[in-house]
């Protein structure tokens, strides 16, 4: 016992020495060929992908934060990166943190080796946190639709999907519209992923209810009204759905992104049936965004991670997780998309809406005022 503790202490001391030495070398320009990785805005600044890889391997580390392994196939993506670049140690911090907490982590850990290198953010947080980002345009920049990227390269959409309803066909009848969920068969069974005044996915659930309940994105009141009715009917269950609550049958109906609902289905394969439906009519879409921390302790590795995420191979891995990759159209045209996975995506609704920054702000304020009362 004592011996192993001593060894652990020695290992810690060794690790500390190593990281101190790492600090010392960090002060020098890291990239090969004298490029300062921290200010590089595109692959061309490094030269070739091989040069970027060399610079990233020299850093030897990558800090990611708030990437749940069961979220849109992130687990497989991280594992692929680790397999391809064994020289780079990936540190996965707080997988369940919120987007706002990612920015707080960057602020609290600024200047330290443990600060996050890259962010994965909801749109609202991305829009208000641009001071924290370093501009960088990935090689496939031009293939990304204009609506889904910040023009100077501060942040860029990566994967997204439609707000959908997942349900257990053995516990409830298949819902065909929002109205159906108000029925007797759904008593105490309908959950949404988080509180909409806190979590992006839950916010989108109210947005979807808004457009499906006769409202539009300028005013989320129609969506709030729907959940108020759902609550009054005793159908709303106020528990955060997770694969565990789905497996135990506590949350037989879940409002969540279609790729997350697909994730539940994949994870519970063999244990519980899980169907995913995107209601007809207007669909509500949302994309998550990638950004690089401007104070990234491993600036080259951060940029390599970005190039990696926007490679067709990884974009197809989003698809495997049931999410829509941002390069979808370009990859279809170039024949790079995995046809089988692409065909398995739920059919997109006739109309699609995505809230603008202003609509998003107004909705957040409204939810802050009304939500708690509506679902009390």
């Amino acid at each position, binding site marked *: 016992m004592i011996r192993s503790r001593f060894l652990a202490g020695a290992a810690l001391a060794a690790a500390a020495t190593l990281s101190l030495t790492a600090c010392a070398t960090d002060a020098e320009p890291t990239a090969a060929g004298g490029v300062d990785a921290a200010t590089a805005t595109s692959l061309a600044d490094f030269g070739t992908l091989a040069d970027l890889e060399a610079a990233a391997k020299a850093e030897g580390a990558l800090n990611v934060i708030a990437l749940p392994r069961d979220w849109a196939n992130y687990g497989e993506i991280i594992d692929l990166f680790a397999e391809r670049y064994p020289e780079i140690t990936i540190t996965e911090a707080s997988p369940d943190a919120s987007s706002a907490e990612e920015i707080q982590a960057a602020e609290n850990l600024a200047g330290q080796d443990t600060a996050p290198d890259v962010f994965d953010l909801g749109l609202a*947080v991305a829009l208000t946190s641009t001071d924290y980002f370093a501009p960088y345009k990935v090689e496939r920049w031009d293939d990304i639709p204009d609506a889904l990227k910040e023009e100077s390269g501060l942040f860029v959409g990566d994967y997204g999907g439609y707000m959908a309803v997942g349900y257990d066909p053995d516990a409830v009848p298949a819902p065909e519209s929002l109205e159906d969920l108000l029925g007797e068969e759904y008593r105490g069974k309908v959950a949404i992923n988080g509180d909409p005044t806190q979590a992006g996915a839950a916010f989108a659930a109210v947005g979807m209810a808004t457009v499906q309940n006769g409202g539009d994105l300028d005013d989320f009141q129609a969506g709030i009204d729907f959940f108020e009715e759902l609550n009054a009917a005793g159908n*709303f*269950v*106020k528990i955060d759905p997770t694969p565990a609550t789905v497996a135990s049958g506590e949350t037989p109906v879940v409002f969540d992104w279609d790729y997350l609902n697909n994730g539940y289905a994949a994870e519970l394969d063999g244990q519980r049936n899980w169907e995913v439906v995107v209601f007809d009519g207007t669909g509500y879409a949302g994309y998550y965004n990638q950004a690089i921390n401007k104070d990234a302790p491993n600036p080259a590795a951060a940029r390599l991670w970005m190039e990696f995420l926007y490679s067709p191979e990884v974009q197809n891995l989003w698809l495997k997780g049931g999410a829509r990759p941002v390069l979808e159209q370009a990859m279809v045209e170039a024949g790079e998309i995995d046809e089988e996975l692409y065909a398995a995506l739920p059919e997109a609704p006739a109309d699609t809406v995505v809230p603008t920054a202003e609509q998003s702000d107004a909705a957040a304020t409204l939810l*802050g005022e009304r939500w708690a009362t509506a679902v*009390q």
Partner: protein
Amino acid sequence: MSSSTVVTPAVEPRSAAAPRGSTRPVPSRRARGGTAAWGVAPFAVYVALFLVLPTVIALATGFVDEDGAPTLDTVAALGDPFVLRGFGTSIALSAVTAVIGALLGALVSYAIVSARPEGMLRSVIDAASGVLAQFGGVMLAFAFIATIGIQGGVTVLLRDLAGIDIFADGVWLYESPGLILPYIYFQVPLMIIVFLPALESLKPQWAEANATLGGTTATFWWRIGIPVLWPSFLGSLLLLFANAFSSYATAAALTSQGQSIVPLQIRAALTSETLLGRENLAGALALGMVVVMVIVMTLYALLQRRADRWRR
């Protein structure tokens, strides 16, 4: 529950003064004071670092805006209907569970006070209370989910065997009223810990005096028992209130919607990814909580002073 509430059993050690006539040299007052001051230094540092400093920071953040400029806006936000309802729910929940916990705990204490202090019954209840009073947070929430959650053991048994659906009118366990049950679970044992010593301080001589003077059991309680015990009882009640008021993890693990109580509103203000830039509201909310706690603890200190009269 926040296990941070340090529970001080309301017992005073029996007089520690040296017996009169003892030949043991008594250290001079000054020397004793000096050593004592050094002795509490670590505690003083602890209090400064973990109580005073955070309080000052919490108070300060309530009075500055996002850019650090002084403002009263965040404190004014305490008047927001959403925040007021949070304080209302928090205070109501704490009061209800404190009263129920105090009454149940007092009854249990009364039932076991006459048992032999070294006996099996007392040891078991003492030990169990000590453990259960600290059994809070996510563990407790999980215990409740596993027993009376939607698919909990008891829920399923009741539904399948007796045909009773405890959630027929909606799943109340995950809403504010559903918090009452888990809170009482840790309030009752805490009450036993703090109230039992007060009950023990009722001296048998008082009962004998009452009997000698022709009093009945009723007169004993009316004239002696209740007047002696009420400050302790009210003090314990306040402690229970404070305990529930500062609880966070149980509620956080059980309910995810509406942010009904203040500690959950503080979390929302800090971590929300949809309503941004409200970090300072968290400071203002903490300020509000500190004010409530200061009032409760002042009352507690006053009542303890009264209660101590009878324990000398």
